[in-house]
C-alpha cells in the first residue's frame, strides 16, 4: 500500500516535471530573446510595410527604366521625366520616412505618429507615380 502510494507520488512529480519543463524552458527562452521581439502596433506595422513596398516599387521602376533608358527617353519622355524626378526627390523622402518610423518607435507619441504618417503619405504618392509609369511602359 505504502509502495503504491510512493509510486503514485513519484509518478505525479515526474508528470509535473514533464509538463513544467518545456513550459518553463519556453518562457525562459522567450524572455531571453524578448528584447528583440517585435510588438504588434498596427500603425508601425502598416508604416513599415508601406515604406518597404514604396521602396520596392520605386526601385523596380527605376531599374526597369535604367535598363531601357535610351528607348524610354526617346519614345516615352514622360516616363523618363517621372524616373528623373523620383531619382532626385525620393531618396530624401524615403530616408526621412525611415527616420520618422524610428522616431515614432522610440517615443510612441502622437506627434511623432502624425509626422510619420505625413512622410509615408508622400512616399506612397511617389510609389503610385512609379506604379503608373511602370504600367505605361508595360502598355503594348
Amino acid at each position: 500500500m505504502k509502495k503504491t502510494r510512493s509510486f503514485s507520488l513519484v509518478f505525479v512529480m515526474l508528470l509535473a516535471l514533464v509538463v513544467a519543463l518545456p513550459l518553463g524552458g519556453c518562457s525562459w527562452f522567450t524572455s531571453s530573446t524578448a528584447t528583440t521581439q517585435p510588438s504588434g502596433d498596427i500603425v508601425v506595422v502598416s508604416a513599415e510595410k508601406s515604406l518597404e513596398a514604396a521602396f520596392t516599387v520605386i526601385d523596380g521602376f527605376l531599374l526597369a527604366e535604367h535598363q531601357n533608358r535610351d528607348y524610354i527617353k526617346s519614345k516615352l519622355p514622360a516616363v523618363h521625366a517621372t524616373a528623373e524626378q523620383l531619382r532626385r526627390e525620393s531618396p530624401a523622402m524615403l530616408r526621412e520616412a525611415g527616420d520618422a518610423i524610428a522616431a515614432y518607435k522610440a517615443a510612441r507619441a502622437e506627434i511623432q505618429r502624425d509626422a510619420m504618417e505625413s512622410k509615408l503619405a508622400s512616399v506612397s504618392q511617389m510609389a503610385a507615380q512609379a506604379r503608373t509609369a511602370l504600367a505605361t511602359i508595360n502598355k503594348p
Partner: protein
Amino acid sequence: MQIISLILAILSVVEQSATTVDKLIEIGRRSGELTDDQLADLRARMASAFAAPHWRPDSPATLPPLNDSGTGPA
C-alpha cells in the same frame, strides 16, 4: 531594329515587374513590427540602393551659369 528594342524593353520591364511583385507579396506576408535590427537593415538597403547606377539622375539639378558680374544667370 526598333521592334526588337521594343520587345526587349517590354521583356525587361515584365521581368522587373514580376520581381517587384514577388517582393511585395513577401512584404505582405509579414505580420508584426520589424525589430530594430531589421528596420536598420531596411534603411541600410535603401541607402546602398541610392548609390546604385539606376538611382543616379541623368544630370543633377544645377543652376544656370552666372553672368560676368555674377549677379544673375548668363
